[in-house]
């Protein structure tokens, strides 16, 4: 409990410090607006609906990217798991995958899908999918052999064993993949919007930056931070429940 309070204190103190530095003019208004001002600006743009279309576009793209990454990653994980020689061949590639800056491929996606949501989703999926593949493989590896044997004892079919034993047994590991996929989808979508889009929160932030509209820019940055925090808190809550049951 004391760790938690210490953490809250540190974050609060830093926000208070920034607030103080902004209010006293140590940090000029052209560089950064005060955190309290960011909240006011955020409330303002949410009420006015000025960026509602951009916000909707971004969150839709994140949702699509997340779902695609989870489904594709899970299915690819199952296939790779069932073909050991393919797995041996792919394993080093999967392990070093995140050493590649996926964003270097953005010209390729523009050529393939044009500027817009399709390219953005493609980059986000490319970024997120491998974390789900890895999580799926990890989960399948960790199903205790004795649980599969237990399925045999209950004379369960292959499908029933998969659904009622293997899936729940891998769920805590799969969820790690889900968490990472969500995080990568956020990063992939918002970062791509800076370079690949004429809409979305990332685009709106870049646009406001270019026009020195600090109020809008910081309000949108705050929106991203708040959303990510809420989503992660929710996912961590589920994760903690699943992990608590992962025993031994």
């Amino acid at each position, binding site marked *: 409990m004391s760790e938690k309070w210490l953490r809250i204190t540190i974050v609060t103190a830093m926000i208070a410090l920034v607030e103080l530095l902004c209010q006293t003019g140590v940090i000029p208004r052209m560089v950064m607006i005060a955190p309290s001002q960011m909240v006011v600006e955020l409330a303002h743009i949410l009420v006015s609906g000025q960026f509602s279309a951009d916000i909707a576009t971004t969150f839709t793209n994140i949702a699509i990217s997340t779902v695609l990454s989870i489904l594709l990653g899970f299915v690819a994980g199952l296939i790779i798991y069932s073909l050991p020689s393919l797995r041996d061949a792919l394993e080093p590639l999967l392990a070093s995958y995140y050493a590649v800056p996926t964003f270097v491929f953005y010209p390729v996606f523009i050529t393939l899908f044009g500027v817009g949501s399709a390219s953005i989703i493609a980059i986000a999926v490319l970024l997120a999918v491998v974390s789900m593949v890895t999580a799926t493989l990890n989960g399948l590896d960790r199903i*205790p*052999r*004795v*649980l599969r*044997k*237990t399925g*045999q*004892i*209950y*004379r*369960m079919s292959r499908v*029933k064993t998969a659904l*009622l*034993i293997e899936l*729940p*047994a891998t*769920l805590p590991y799969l969820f790690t993949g889900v968490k990472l996929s969500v995080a990568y989808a956020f990063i992939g979508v918002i970062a791509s919007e800076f370079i690949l889009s004429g809409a979305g929160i990332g685009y709106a932030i870049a646009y406001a930056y270019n026009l020195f509209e600090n109020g809008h820019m910081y309000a949108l940055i705050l929106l991203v931070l708040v959303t990510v925090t809420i989503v992660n808190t929710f996912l961590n809550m589920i994760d903690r429940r699943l992990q*608590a*049951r*992962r*025993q*031994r």
Partner: protein
Amino acid sequence: MSAAAAGAKVVTLMPQPAPVEAHATLRGVTRVFQLPKSTLHALGPIDLDLAKGEFFSVVGPSGCGKSTLLDILAGLSPPQSGTAHFEGKPVAGVPDGVGVVFQEDASFPWLNVRDNVAFGLRRAGVDPAEITRRVDYAVGFMGLKDFATSFPAQLSGGMRQRVCIARTLVLQPRLILLDEPFGALDQQTRLLMGDELLRLWRETSATVLLITHALDEAAMLSDRVGVMSTRPGTFIDFVETGWERDRDSRVVSTPHFGDITARLWEKLRVEAMKIMSSGKV
């Protein structure tokens, strides 16, 4: 004084006579594993008759094929040659009426104790009222009543193994196969779990086959103990313990218990030494 002389009451049966009513039988069973560059003759040939309601234990040096023998009787892996029968029918797949408890914790971590115990009954499509009745009984019998809604992660190793035994018990098996079920538990817990097992055996009248590496466990629990040789494992001795059916862990303090254990060790020592000198341990 030799161990055999000391254990005058211990009856050694070799060769083994066929029991009057064989509940499960193995005849000429062998198991050979194909390795990349060689073949491994793991087991047999094995002949075994389990009498109905008998508590039979198998002891043997590590790697002698004890678990393979259990897998064959459970229908989890077929023998290369020979036959396995349960209640007169050849074993093909897991037979109806056979329950298995493994050494590893096989409880499902995502289900609470009650749901773990009910799992097999639900798969078998048993009537819900009957499931409740049987689960209540098994949970109570194994002393899990206060933990019925706990998850395995909240329980000790011994309690989790109770869950696995309760899960087998609700299926009302006529043959219970136990593969070193207390192997991962400490000595005191093992003795107490042994008592539970004896209680369960008396209550259900099931035939029990227990695989163990612990001589004291085999000597305390069994009606009869089969001693296996090093790989390829075959039975080299059968020892009748002559215990009353109504026994418990307190038999360990009797001289007769010492006689049985000594008798088992006399045979097993030779086999264990073979492994030691072969450098496989």
